[in-house]
Every structure is written in C-alpha cells, then in structure tokens.
C-alpha cells in the first residue's frame, strides 16, 4: 500500500512538472515579456536592461528550471502588470473561486442525486424519462448563454438577485447555478446507473426478502453503495469546474482566479497565467490522487496491480 501511494504520488508530481513545462513554453511563445514590463514608453535600452535583469535572453529550459525551483517554494515571481507578488494576488483571489467551485459542485450533487435515485427506482417511467430529458437538454445548453439568460430574467426583469460582485451569499446564486448545472447530467446518469445496478444486486434482494422497509433498503443499503463513485466523479468535476469558472467569473464580475487568468492573458502577464495553470492542475492531481488512494485502501486488489 505504501509503495503504491509513493508510486502514485511520484507520478502526480511528474504530471505537474510536465504540465507546467508545457504551459511555460507555450506562454513564452506568445509575447516578449520585456516589452510587457517596459510598457509603451520604454526605449530599446530600457527593454534590453529588463531582459538582462530578468534573464529573458537565457535558453528557455534554463528559465523554466529557474522558475520551477522558485515555484516549489511558493514563489511565483511578480506580476508584470500589477507589480505585485503573484502568490499574494492568488491568495487574495482563490477564496472566491473556491467558494464558487464548492457551491457549484454541491448544487450539482443536490440536484443530480435525488433525480438519479428517483429515476432509478422506476426505470423507464415518465419520471425517469423526464430526468433524462433534463440531462440531455442540460448538456446541450452553452454555459455562458444560460448565464446571460439568468441575468436578463432574474437580475434585470425581476431584480430578484444581484448581478455582479461577491459581497453576499446572494451574489453567488446565479454563478453557482450556471457553473453547477453543467455537471448535473453526468452525475445524475451515474447515480441512476449505480442505483439500478445496486437495486438489482443480491444483497438488496436479500435485505428486501428479510422484510426491511423499502425506505431503509433504499437509503441504508442501496444509496450508500451507489453514491461512492458519484462522489469520486464529483471530485474530478470539481477540478474541471475551477477551470470552467473563467467564463462565469467574467460574466458575473467575480474577481476570482478565473477572472484573474483571463485578465492576465489579455495583458500577456505570464507569471500569473503560469501560476494559475499550475494551481488548477494541482487541484486536479491532488483530488484524483486522493480518490485513487481511497479506492486502493477500500479495495486492496488495486494496489497490487
């Protein structure tokens, strides 16, 4: 088990290195950072001085190693545009994105699990078909379009909800729904499939045969088993959602990491872009690592493979 955990952790670490190296070279293709730092008024000598100061003339892999070494101690350098420490900027923005991500995934689970369970209890019924219809329709709706429609209806016409900012919990309602609904179809289908399988399994039949009430069977025996893969998938989706928050944060003027990365891309603010990519990747890697290790712990056969 320990060997397996070590092996998986090492591989996760390696993944982060590859991801960050790819992003690093990609973003350094896009713009001459010396020009960005120098600004409009910089003379050619100024630009050269900046290149020397930051070492932009060095080969890119040397620059990467330099960056990676610092990044490991939490030092992502300074934003070219804001002149602030990237780590400070991220620390100030990550809360908003995390709040949004957690709320969105909770929303998705709150909608998809009951729907999935109900659908599984009566497969092929009207209710089941209705749930699947919602899933199919939901998957085809562009997130940003859905978000705009909500703003028009709930923000402008009815004035029920605040449109932009993150001052109160009410500010998070529309962004949460917009970001969360996209995950519901996948989670609901998994819940439904899992429930159908579990309900047909021997031990549920046994439990029923023992005369336990249907409610007890449903919640105590069936749902508990069916829900584990759903939660695992939700963890993975959480990682995706952080990345998907770019559009939502931009539309609802939430100043989180998604917005920050969008703003930084517009300004070729490379240190910020690199740091955010690495953070999003880390979230994904850590979450899947945790899920894998948990699985291995529950099912020792996995670590042997």
């Amino acid at each position, binding site marked *: 088990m320990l060997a397996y955990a070590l092996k998986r952790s090492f591989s996760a670490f390696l993944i982060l290195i590859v991801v960050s190296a790819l992003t690093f070279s990609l973003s350094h293709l*896009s*713009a*001459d950072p010396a*020009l*960005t730092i120098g*600004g*409009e*008024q910089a*003379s*050619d000598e100024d630009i050269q001085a900046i290149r020397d100061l930051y070492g932009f003339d060095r080969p890119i892999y040397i620059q990467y190693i330099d960056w990676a070494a610092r990044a490991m101690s939490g030092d992502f350098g300074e934003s070219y*545009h*804001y*002149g602030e420490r990237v780590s400070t900027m991220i620390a*100030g923005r990550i809360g908003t994105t995390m709040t949004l991500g957690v709320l969105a995934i909770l929303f998705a689970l709150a909608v998809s699990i009951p729907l999935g369970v109900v659908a599984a209890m009566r497969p092929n019924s009207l209710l089941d078909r209705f749930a699947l219809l919602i899933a199919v329709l939901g998957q085809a709706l562009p997130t940003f379009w859905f978000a*705009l429609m909500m*703003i*028009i*209806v709930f*923000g*402008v*016409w*009815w*004035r029920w909800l*605040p*449109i*932009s*900012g993150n001052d109160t919990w009410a500010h998070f309602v529309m962004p949460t729904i917009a970001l969360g609904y996209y995950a519901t179809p996948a989670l609901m289908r998994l819940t439904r499939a899992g429930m159908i399988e579990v309900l047909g399994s021997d031990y549920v039949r046994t439990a029923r045969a023992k005369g336990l009430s249907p409610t007890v069977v449903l919640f105590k025996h069936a749902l508990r088993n069916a829900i584990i893969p759903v939660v695992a998938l939700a963890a993975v989706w959480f990682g995706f959602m952080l990345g998907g928050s770019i559009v939502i944060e*931009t*539309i*609802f*003027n939430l*100043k989180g990491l998604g*917005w920050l990365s969008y*703003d930084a*891309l*517009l*300004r*070729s603010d490379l240190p910020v872009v690199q740091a955010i990519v690495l953070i999003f990747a880390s979230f994904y890697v850590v979450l899947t690592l945790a899920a894998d290790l948990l699985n291995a712990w529950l099912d020792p056969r996995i670590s042997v493979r």
Partner: protein
Amino acid sequence: MKLIRLAVVAGFAASLTAAPALAGPDDDSLTVAWGSTGPIENVDNYFNTNRTGIWFSRMVWDQLIYREPKTFEYKPLLAESWEALSDTTWQFKLRQGVKFHNGEPFDADDVVFTLNWVSNPENGVKVQRNVDWIESAEKVDQYTVNIHMKKPFPQAFEFLSGPLTIYPNEYYAEVGPDGMHKAPVGTGPMKVVSVKTAEEYVFEKNTDYTWGSPKGEAQVSKLTVREIADVQTQIAELLAGGIDITADISADHVDQIGGVPGFTAMQAGTMRTGYIGFDAAGRGNFEPTTKLEVRKAMAMAINRQSLVENLIRGDAGVIHTPCFPTQFGCDEGAAVKWDYNPEKAKELLASAGYPDGFEIDFYTFRPADWAEAIMADLAKVGIKASLTKMPYFALRDKQRNEGTTPMFLMDWGSYSMNDMSAITSHFFKKGADDFALDDEVAAWLEEGDTSSDPEVRKAAYAKAIGKITGEVYWLPMFNHVRNYGFNERLAFIPYQDEIPRFWQYGWGGS
C-alpha cells in the same frame, strides 16, 4: 415569439414599478461602474497607464494648473500665478491654506518633493514622457517654487495641468507607490475611504475643499466606483439599479438605454483619434503597403463618412489630420484630404501593378464591426483583407517587437493633452511605433516639440502633417465618442477631454 416580446415589455415595466433604491438619489451617494479595458493596476497616478487611472486621479489629487475643459485655457489651481523667468524656468506662486486629506498642509515642499521624485528615472514612473522634461524643482520660499526644464519645453503646461498631480511629501516619502495605492492621499474634491484592487474604490466628500477650486466641491457625500470589466454586466447593473452611471457603453446602447424610462444616455465626442496605419517602411516585408499609390488607393477606397454616420455617430466626425484638430499645431489646412472615390482607387491599384487587388492582414483591438465595414469597402476595389482581432497589449507587442502588421486600425487618446506632440510625435519620431520611419517628418516634429516660439512650432508641425497625410503613412479616420448611460435624475455634464468629473454629478431632482 410574441410572447417573449410581451415578457420583455412586462419585465421592464415590472422592474420600473419595483425600482428598489439600491443606489442613487435617496442616500446622497453615487455608484459608478468602469473598467471595460481592465482594472487600474495601481491607483498611484504615476504607476498606471489606464484611462480610468486619469479619472481616479482627478477626484483625489490636484495639479498646479487647471485646464478649463471647454476652452482649454489655463487657470490657477494649486498655483495662484506663474511667470517665466527664462526659456527653461517657470516660477509658480502657490495657493495658501490648502490641506491634504491627512491634514498635512500644502506648500512648496510638497511640489518640490513630488516633481523631483517623479522626474528621477530611478523611481520608475510608468510614463517617463510625462516627467522626463523636468530638470528639477526648487523651493524659493514656503509658497514659491521654480521649475527648471532640461530644454525649452512648450508643452509643459499640458503636463502640469494633466498628469502631474501633487503628492504630500511626508506621506509619500514614507509609504511610496505601494502605500499610495493602498491609501491614496491628495488635496482633491474626494477623499479615498478604501481601495480594493480591481474591485471597488470608495470615496467620501472632502469637506475641506472650500478654497474656491475651479474643479468645484463634490456634489454627493459618498461615491463608489466598481471595476466591472464586462460592459453588458455594467448595463445589467444600471438597469437593475445597482449602479448610477457607466461610461463604457456603445453607440447603439445609447439609443437603447435612452429609450428605457428612467434612464438617459448621451454621447460626447473626445479627442481620441482613430486611424489606419500602414507599414510604409516595410518593417514586416509586406510589399504592397510600401507603395504610395497603393496607400492612396486604400485611402480613397474607404468610406469614412458612412462609417462615422452609421457606426460611431454622436458628434464624431471624419478627421483628416494625424492629430485632433483642437490640439496645438494640428492645422487641418495643412493636411492632404482623401475623399471617397473607389473608381480612382481601382485605377491607382492597377497602375501600382495590382489590377486584381491583393490580400492583406488587417489588425485591430477594437470591436470587429468597424474593421468589418472597412474590409467590405476594400473588397469593393479588390483588396481582400483578413482580420486579426487581438487584445490591446498583445497587438502593441506584435507591432513594436515584430512589426509584422501591414495595416492596423488603432486609436490614441493623447492622455487628454491638447497638444499634437502627444500623438503625432509619439508615432512618427522613429520609435518602436513608427511604421513610416521618415527622417524628414521626425526632424520637423523634433523642431516643433522643442521650440519655444509658437509660430515656429506651428510651421514645423504643418510640414509634418502635410507629409504624413500626403504620403498616407496614416489614414486618419474619426474621433471617438464616449457613450454615457445614467439614471435620468443625475445631473451629468459631458466633457470633450474624455474625463468625466464624477464628483461634479449630483442628484438634480426631477
């Protein structure tokens, strides 16, 4: 679809009757949204290059000189009077009894410290051009200051009445740009209560601003500015009552918002000058634009009048000069004017060796519709332009670094300075933004920039204008329009220098 329309109408009607007082007249506060081109990175006036940074600075700080926004006359502000001691020295008598927001009294020490600090290149002020003409500032007595210039600098007053805001010496020496960003302190009509970078700034009325400043006292006791990058979100907030005014909307929004009961929208022309630049010097090795006949043909193929009438509107007009006509030296009579004449354009193309036209890459960072209208005009004479719309900073990088932009639709706001050196000299003195690389033009501009005799300046600038337009290095297009949408009860005043004075807008009743 009828139903949907009904719903729209019903929705607006409902929203009007509901009208919750989120912001607005009831609590003597004003909420502003700005930021469609990105948030201010550092609200310290010397460490940002945003248009909104200028708007911010006018609320919090004052300059020595006030430029009357309608007539562009210079009037006393922190300085009461001034005189030239020599070609390169001005003496300023300062106003007495002015206090900074932190209680520090204003005197010569503040002026001397500020000007010497910002003009020291080691302190890294972002726009060196604003300060690099200052040799030094010197205290004569507690309320008299001499400013020495490196060489005769005729545009000095444009800078002294614009970007050169005066800081409190003791405070700034202690906290520097970082501290000034977190807690700005000035003499201006609004005091800063809080700064949340990229999110929100809160101001309150400076009740000590009673010394007769021509800028006037604040009309509301509390002012909040929200940085909202998305214009549509700004409009949604405006319609929903979350903000009272935005300055980022489009010309089409003006008609639309103006049509909603309770709201007014207005267009105000600015000195921001739009132009199409051509790579005449061949920096990107693109053959056609290096030929004068081709550039002339393109100038005649583009229907600027139709573009202005249909897309820009307001008091925008076609511009023929590579600068804005109110700017010093910007003589329209000196410019070669190119009228819309697609037939002549085709002939010119044929004689330049392109009877069937050619393909060209066209760059812009502005909304694509302007460029699309231009491309459609060019297509009529056989020139097939393909558009690349890029973020502003990326495009500037590409231009300055690679120079591979044969044709580009750009614009320049001149930092609201009413002197053509702020635009033409920036682009045609062989710097990284120069795609003409014309020695003669550069020399004339240098002469105009440094002579202290206004007539000599005008003559030199006129020659430069003549050659830039005659050679079609630029095709000047139109001046931009700022479009404002606001609550109809707000007493809004538009200004041509693209600087809304938010503190002057009060609730006028109705």
